[in-house]
């Protein structure tokens, strides 16, 4: 006979159910805090749909948890470059996330030509590219080219940051 502890082992998918549950509760709590106003037209106020969606999420979370505990599991997505035979490579994912967040932090103070280059170089490095001369050149070329392309051809002024006045 299996205990609950044994049954939950290796079932990280329960985390998905937990997340859905949290989102559902969040939707309902947020909806209940909306003050009712006289501006409301019609019988259905702004809280009705969020509450319905919250209930949907909670019900789905419970059903999913039941399914997982009973041995069901979602099928991980396949693809041309995906090899599911080895476990998740968390180091690559974390490095990629780092490169992405570096761009978020840098884009306004340092400007897109720099932050974009950091993003591309960091991502390529994270994914295993080790051309330490070629990679930075491609990264800078891409970010400077898109800076001008967006500024000149599309009329979208990306931030120049510290390079303001130079570019």
């Amino acid at each position, binding site marked *: 006979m299996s205990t609950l502890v044994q049954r939950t082992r290796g079932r990280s998918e329960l985390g*998905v159910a937990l997340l*859905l549950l949290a*989102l559902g509760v969040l939707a309902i709590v*947020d*909806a209940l805090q909306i003050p009712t*106003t006289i*501006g*409301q037209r*019609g*019988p*259905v106020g*702004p809280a009705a*749909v*969020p509450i319905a*969606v919250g209930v*949907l*999420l909670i019900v*789905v979370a419970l*059903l*999913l948890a039941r*399914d997982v505990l*009973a*041995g069901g*599991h*979602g*099928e*991980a*997505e*396949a*693809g*041309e*470059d995906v*090899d599911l035979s080895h476990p*998740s*490579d968390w180091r*690559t*994912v974390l490095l*990629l996330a780092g*490169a*992405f967040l570096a*761009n*978020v932090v840098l*884009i306004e103070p340092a400007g897109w030509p720099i932050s*974009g280059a950091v*993003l*591309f170089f960091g*991502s*390529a*490095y*994270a*994914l295993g*590219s080790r051309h330490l001369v070629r990679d930075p050149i491609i990264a800078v070329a*891409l*970010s400077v080219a898109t800076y001008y392309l*967006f500024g000149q*051809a599309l*009329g*979208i*002024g990306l*931030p120049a940051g510290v390079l303001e006045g130079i570019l």
Partner: protein
Amino acid sequence: MDALSALIEGFGTALTPINLLLALAGVVLGTAIGVLPGIGPAMAVALLLPVTYNLEPVGAFIMFAGIYYGGMYGGSTTSILLNTPGESASVVTAIEGNQMAKRGRAAQALATAAIGSFVAGTLGTLGVVFLAPYVVDLAVQMGAPDYFAVMVLAFIAVTSVLGASRIRGFASLGIGLLIGIVGIDAVTGQQRLTFGVPQLADGIDVIVVAVGLFALGEALWIAAHLRRKPAEVIPVGRARMGREDFRRSWKPWLRGAVIGFPFGAMPAGGAEIPTFLSYVTEKRLSKHPEEFGKGAIEGVAGPEATNNASAAGVLVPLLALGLPTSAIAAVLLAAFQQYGIQPGPLLFENEPELVWGLLASLIIGNTLLLVLNLPLAPIWAKLLKTPRPYLYAGILFFASLGAYAVNLAVVDLVVLFIIGLTGFMMRRYGLPVVPAIIGVILGPRAEVQLRRALQISNGELSGLYNTWFSKSLYVVVALIVLWPLLNRFVLRPLRRQAEIPVLSETAHILDDAHHHKLVVPPQEGPMDGPADDRPTAAVSDDAGHATEGRENR
């Protein structure tokens, strides 16, 4: 012949030099990006959205038309030439296409795919031209309850038909609906789920959601499981085919067009089921059934044509009702909204130049694709060798750029990151992505119709189903929802006596594909096992199939 003269006028719009150039640019960009492994047509459109920011709406949509069909075509090239299974939409083309390529017939496989796409895509587009005005006539008579019912049907159909697990489909839908709620309520001006962040008051931009779920989520997911050794690319010369190949291909092309179009036009979502249906049909009708599984050209011609005809069919509900039923349609709808254009029955009245120019340029784009892709096949094959670090670094780079360029706001990048992580989690745990994007885009509009309908009826719930149209739609919804029960207690005992071979075989192959067992399809005729004619409802006795079985009980 009203539609025909309107279409001819559309050609007048589409054939100006600048629009022709935009169509060409769209086709080339769409194919090039669609060919890249890991990038499907929906991601291609989402990533290329910023390129059109500065264009006039008509020009922008002519370019999107090219990107749409180009991306579809690029995807099939990938699945034929790469020696690995791709995502489910192109799985069927890959079965025979990849076998043909391995046997040195890659050029013929690409040629029959290209010509089949052209034939079915053109027929499908003509289908849109003639069918859409009728749907518009119907749509102008539709009231709020009818619209709400159509949207409910779209939600239920997309979550129930796609993927292997309904619960996971609904989980995805719920996430999408939740994202759609964020922002100021259109009716009362109250803030919902904005957490006091002023930039969230306008809601989360659909483009940020699309780029996050498709581009960032996908790139992170692939990065976690990147093949150590990139998949082998089968070399190919100019795509061409001989007379014998033609003789064997033309009927599957036409049948594919007939199978694919209605499936696309229904709010059932996706080309997966019709392509499998086409595959099985061709296998049964073929004079060479023994070649299936070893590179039968009919098995490429039929599904590929089906795929494109269904891509055209999707445009009927999108343009006439404003109802997206596939991932690309949802992204296209987001693009329309970017220009402040609301697809739906009024679109044909208010923006005839745009609608008919778009439809005409789809036909032009299709022709351009045919002319370009036969000689350009070797170049597309080279793109498949793009070093993977650059490919996925590039996706991250352009995803960030595109999401930032929408509003020039850093907060969008933070939102993009969170949605990207959500997309990663969804792929990891088998939650389909399409219901989420449909939920984001349709959720707020369904809410508007719901509230309008209840306002008219003064809060009476009957206001939601007081028309024959909404009533019949809810019957369909009920049938889909109750299908597993019906299947178990009514249909299966009946089917013990009479089996429909094509359907049950399709179901079996589909079911296998959902579990990625599909390498070579079974050679024999109808299955003798307990096959179902609806894969999502299948209750399998195989332990590996535990998921669906359990939740239907």
